[in-house]
């Protein structure tokens, strides 16, 4: 199994698209959590999103909440794309057959891919935390504020919550890629759900229909938003709202992660490879 994991790591570490996704996530995180709020604070763009945030929210003590604020929406979307790429590209390049004639155990290869996704989303979350921490130190230095770091428990909880939510979205990407045996359609459909349908449900349908309001408490997006909200992400961030208790949110996200992963494995196991 370890040799399969190493093979997957070698493959994905050299793939430019993965580094591009990571770079975009880090850039968006800095732009929306620090640059725009800081510009708003200095009066340059007073109407920009999050510009009303105070300086305190950009200092090192708050860097975890800034780092994970994007997880329910854009970080989740990028994680979903990553999940699609890890599995779907094997269909696009027809490389499943090249791999599976070397090793007939689809379960082992799929297991290696799951570990690759877990590792990839962990790197994503750690990168966001590192970038946010660096940006917060820059802000504190420029504003001559003391540098106070959050406690290890807050740091671990924030990283763990963001990792869980990101991996859940990546596992949805893997499932869609296996179900649709491609890359483009799974990315498109996944993003439509993540960025459009969920927002329409919560912004338009839920206030009008009670059953939609109740139903969305079981959907992956609102639970991801609730989890990061409970970990300090500001509720004025898109997708962040504490609709359910953090324990429930974590359990629901975990259940989705297991279900998406298991369903993907089952489909891969029983279908023919063409």
């Amino acid at each position, binding site marked *: 199994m370890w*040799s*399969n994991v*190493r*093979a997957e790591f*070698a*493959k994905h570490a*050299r*793939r*430019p698209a993965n580094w591009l996704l990571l770079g975009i996530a880090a850039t968006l995180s800095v732009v929306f959590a620090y640059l725009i709020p800081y510009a708003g604070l200095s009066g340059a763009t007073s109407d920009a999103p999050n510009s009303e945030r105070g300086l305190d929210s950009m200092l090192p003590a708050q860097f975890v909440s800034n780092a994970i604020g994007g997880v329910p929406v854009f970080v989740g979307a990028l994680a979903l794309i990553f999940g699609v790429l890890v599995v779907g*590209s094997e269909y696009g*390049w*027809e*490389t*499943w*057959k*090249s*791999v*599976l*004639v*070397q*090793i*007939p*155990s689809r379960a082992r*290869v799929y297991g290696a891919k799951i570990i690759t996704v877990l590792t990839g989303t962990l790197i994503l979350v750690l990168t966001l935390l590192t970038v946010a921490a660096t940006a917060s130190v820059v802000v504190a230095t420029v504003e001559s504020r003391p540098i106070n770091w959050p406690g290890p428990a807050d740091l671990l909880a924030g990283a763990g919550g963001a990792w869980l939510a990101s991996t859940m979205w990546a596992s949805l990407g893997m499932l869609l890629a296996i179900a649709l045996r491609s890359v483009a359609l799974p990315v498109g459909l996944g993003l439509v759900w993540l960025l459009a349908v969920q927002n329409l449900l919560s912004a338009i349908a839920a206030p009008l229909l009670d059953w939609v309001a109740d139903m969305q408490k079981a959907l992956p997006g609102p639970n991801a938003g609730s989890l990061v909200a409970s970990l300090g992400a500001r509720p004025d961030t898109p997708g962040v709202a504490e609709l359910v208790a953090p324990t429930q949110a974590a359990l629901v996200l975990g259940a989705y992660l297991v279900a998406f992963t298991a369903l993907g494995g089952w489909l891969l196991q*029983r279908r*023919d*490879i*063409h």
Partner: protein
Amino acid sequence: MSDPVETTALTKRYGEILAVDQLRLHVRDGEVYGFLGPNGAGKTTTLRMLLGLVRPTSGGVRLFGRPPGPGYLASVGALIEGPSFYPYLSGRQNLRVLAGHAGVDRSRVPGVLDTVDLTDRADDRYGTYSLGMKQRLGLAAALLKKPGLLILDEPTNGLDPAGMADMRRTIRKLAAEGCTILLSSHLLAEVQQVCDRVGVIAQGRLVAERTVGEFGTASLRVAADPLAEARDVAGRLVGAERVRTEGEVLELDVEPDQASRINTELVRAGIDVSELHWHEPDLEKTFLELTGAQSHVE
């Protein structure tokens, strides 16, 4: 010892379409077996079932006596329906990734690159390779596990004549080293040049299984005047049972080194010899008779 490939009543159905029908295939140890059939006959589906990529609707498959499961492909290499690799990796990196999945030491990679004569371009991105180089890399990947059985699906597809000759030379070399080879092709000449035994598949069924020689051997055709006298002279030289009249010419089942002597004796007997040439057996005609197909073969 079990046969490298053994199938029993192997069947694959896609809805209403019966792609492979009760196929019984035996490939013996050390032989080069040609799996011949027109496009769409079920060759690739059969090979995919052998490799566990496609699940049979019914019937069984064994490779070296093992049913599908752990260790099933331990000594099997394959190139199925053209090479497929990661375009952003080099040839060498692609092989290292596949070696990792196969559980093979990376030290095998330089050797197989050398076998397919790709060492010079091994560090270039796969996406920049020509079709011939891609095909050679595919063969290199198939050799990673030092296979006892090599399954090659149309390995010369898309290659130019020089590339085809190279590929056939490599296949013959591997066979000479003791590797059993199952080669699917729709090219009669290719099968004739490379294979020991041939299975002909049509509409999912194995319609014939013969040695290449049983498909017919080359004969010497002689146009001479008078024909009856020429037949007598030739009959005395090589045996009457090996001489027959086909229209306006004689057809002689003889070895190539006898041609000049036959010519000399006919001329010495005062017979005018206007034509003397080797006639290859009409494999295509035989193939079409067996498959009942239109000419999808070359």
